[in-house]
Structures are given as C-alpha cells and as structure tokens.
C-alpha cells in the first residue's frame, strides 16, 4: 500500500470572506473567528483519513482562499 503523504491546509486570511463552506465540509479541519472568517485548526496538519475532506474544502471555496499542501 502506498504511503499516504501528510497534508496541511492553509486559509489565506486576505482572501477568506466567510462563506463558511470549509467549516460545513470539514469541521475538524477548520474553525471560525467571531466574524465567521476561517482558519485551519492547529497548524493545519490534516489527520489521516481526512485528506479527501481537505481537498473538498479547497475545491469548494468560492474565494480560492484554501490551499492543501504536502506538510
């Protein structure tokens, strides 16, 4: 079985407008501030098994504010 690469999610605060799609899709990976703007939970490391959620959050962000990268 190929080794699963560890991923990291990042939200660009300059681009996030608070659509909250990431929070709806991957609540374990994103949290919101009091204004509803998103940031990654912790340092953004994606726990094993949530890789697809991370990619879906990236693909559904209307502002292209989310990037999924190799940790």
């Amino acid at each position: 079985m190929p080794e699963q690469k560890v991923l990291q999610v990042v939200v660009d605060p300059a681009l996030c407008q608070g659509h909250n799609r990431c929070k709806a899709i991957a609540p374990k990976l994103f949290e919101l501030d009091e204004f509803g703007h998103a940031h990654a939970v912790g340092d953004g490391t994606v726990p094993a098994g949530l890789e697809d959620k991370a990619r879906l959050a990236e693909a559904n962000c209307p502002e292209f504010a989310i990037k999924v990268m190799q940790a």
Partner: protein
Amino acid sequence: MTDRPPVLDWTTDFDHLDPRWVTEPHQIWDELRRQCPIAHTERYGGVYFPSRYADIRAIAYDTEHFSSRRVVVREMPPRAPSGSEKKKSPGAQSTLASPPITSDPPHHRPSRMLLLPAFTPDAISRLEPKTRKICRGLIDRFASDDGCDAAADYAQHVPIAVIAHMLGLPEEDGERFRRWIQLLLHDGIAEDVSFRKALDEMDDYFRQHIAQRRSAGGEDLITFLLKARMADQPLSDEHILGTLRLLLIAGIDTTWSAIGSCLWHLAQHRDDRCRLLSEPALMPTAVEEFLRAYAPVTMARQVAKETTVGGCPFKEREMVLLSFPAANRDPEVFPQADRVVIDRTENRHAAFGLGIHRCIGSNLARMEITVALEEWLARIPDFELTDPASVIWSHGPVRGPRKLPLVFKLTWELRSLLDAR
C-alpha cells in the same frame, strides 16, 4: 410595467426586464457567453453584462474601478431636487443607501464587521428551531388540500417570519414588508414613484422602531445596532436606518426566491425528489447545487473609473450587471453547468457573491432553504407543477417564482400510511 421596445440583438441591446430574459434567462446567457461574453445595452443609461465566470469574478474583486454606490439597474430619470419634493438625500436620485452593501472601501469594512458576528453559523443555528416551527405552521395550512401556490403560500412567508423575529418586529407586519419589497425591487425597477413611496414608508416604520428600542431596549438586531460602536462612536440614525433597510430587503425575497426555485425544480424532477427522500444526507450538496443553478441574486456595480476587463472597455458612470447566476452556469468552471446534479461534490458556486460583498446572510439563507425543503418533503413528498405556463417569475435583481401552483400527488391515504410507518 411599461411597454418596452423589443430587443433586436441581445449582444448590443439586451434588456434585463424583457419577458424572455425574465422567463428563460439561462438560454440567453449561454448564447451571450458563446457570442459576446461582455454584452452591452444603451438602455438604462448604459449597462454591461458579463456572462463568463472569470470576468464576473474579476469585476467583483475590482472595487477600485467598480463601485457599489449603485447596486441595482433600474429606470431612474435623473432628477433635479425641486422644492416640493422631500429632500432626504438632496440632489440625489432615489437610491437606497444601505451600508455595507452600497459602501466601497474604506467605509465598507467597518460597517460589515459589526454585522458579521450576528450571522455566523453558530448564531444562525440558534434560529433553526424557530424556522422549523414557522415552516410546519405554514404547511399545516395547506397540507390536506390538493395543492397550493408554493411561492405565495409557503416560500415567501419563511424568510419574512424569520427576519421579523430577528429584528424583533411583529410577525403580522410581514404583509407590509412583502409589499415594500414588491414596490422597491419589482415595480420600482421600472418607475420611480413606487420606489420612493415604499422607501418613505419603510423609513418611517423603522424610525418608530428605533425610537421605541432606544427607550425600552430589546434583544433583537435593532437593539444590537443601537448598541454597536464604530471607531468608538455609536452609529448615526441614518446608518442604522440604512442597515435595517438592507437586512429587511436582502433577507426576504432572496431566500423566498431560492426556496421557490428549489420547489419548482423538484416539482419537475421526480428522480431528485425520490433521492432526497431516500438519501436525506444528500441535502447539503443538493442545496448548494440549487443555489448554483438557480442563484437568485444579480447585484450591479457602477463603473467608477474607465477600465478594461476581458478585453472590453468599460466606460465611466455606466452600470454593470454582476450576474452571479450567469457565472454559475459557465461550463468553463462547472462541468455539465446546465444540469442540476444534486450530489455534485465540487461546487465553487458564486450564488452569494464574491469578494468583499459576500452575502452576509449566506448562513441564514442556507439554513432557511434547508429547513424549508426538509419540512416540505417530510409532509409533501410528491408534487408536480399544476401547469408550467402558470408559473410567474420575478424580474429585477432577484429572480424566483412569484406564482408557483403545485398539485400534491400523494393522496391522503398514502400519506397516512407513510405517517403510520
């Protein structure tokens, strides 16, 4: 609506109030996207219509060249203020200053930030039980009939009751709100008298409520605005009034249109009805897909400085229809853009706008649409259009069915059997 000269060429003479644009806009936009991705008309003082996602996105982000000081394209005769006229905004045409939607940077951000905490997912989820109760109460009124007008009897009442609750306004004033919106966003698009009449009535109404909250307090959004501070200063009455206009107007016919469009679609797609009933977990992707395919809101911008987008020059002072609904149908961005795919998982749609003016009520709208559909399907699982020709669509900045006669297919007996299960 006054008679309008027929459109001879959609690329150079489009009219967003033309009956064809009102009833089948998506076909027109698809044609324009292929033939002339930035169309123009001399009507309404000059308006551009970009139909590609990329151009719409670029304009939404470019607040330097595209201003939000006017966000609706309407017939608006330039008027010199005369002595007999009420001078609420001296020298100005009838506009609807409603911060932050009509604000540009740098004024936009502070007035938006103060509203945002009231519209986060957590804040909105607290309204869900109330919304469910509202929907159930509405359905109780017609569930045992053969059918109903899903726009007039259901969709429109849901956001009216919810926003009345949020603003601490009597639910029985809902009919008034509905009439103002009709005058401001529908009749008022084609003539100015209705527009001003509604605006004056609405302002008087809110001034009374502001005064009442100021003396008696409350726990609603009006009180919240009275307590709010911007740069350590309380908001001016004009600011509060403008924001209340925005919350009332933006919160009603938008969501009412979205709920209506969802039911219009489901009435004609038995497969989607059945799937949502048998796989309720699909509701979140279905709601996003309905929002993409039937996005109700087209905002506008005014060209503040001459510029070029998508190879097309934009002349200063002319208007731009910023059609997020057209962006959402762009096949460059959305595979099978003209098909409604309720389990579409990648859906970067722009129904709530893009950039700094992202709809502040998006969480509220999503919650209301979801609850309204869930409650409807639980009680009325099978329904069809009574007659497709009898559906009436709104014109103007918000598109949705205003008349939506449905016939309920499930008989009482079958429904009781389902209930007994």
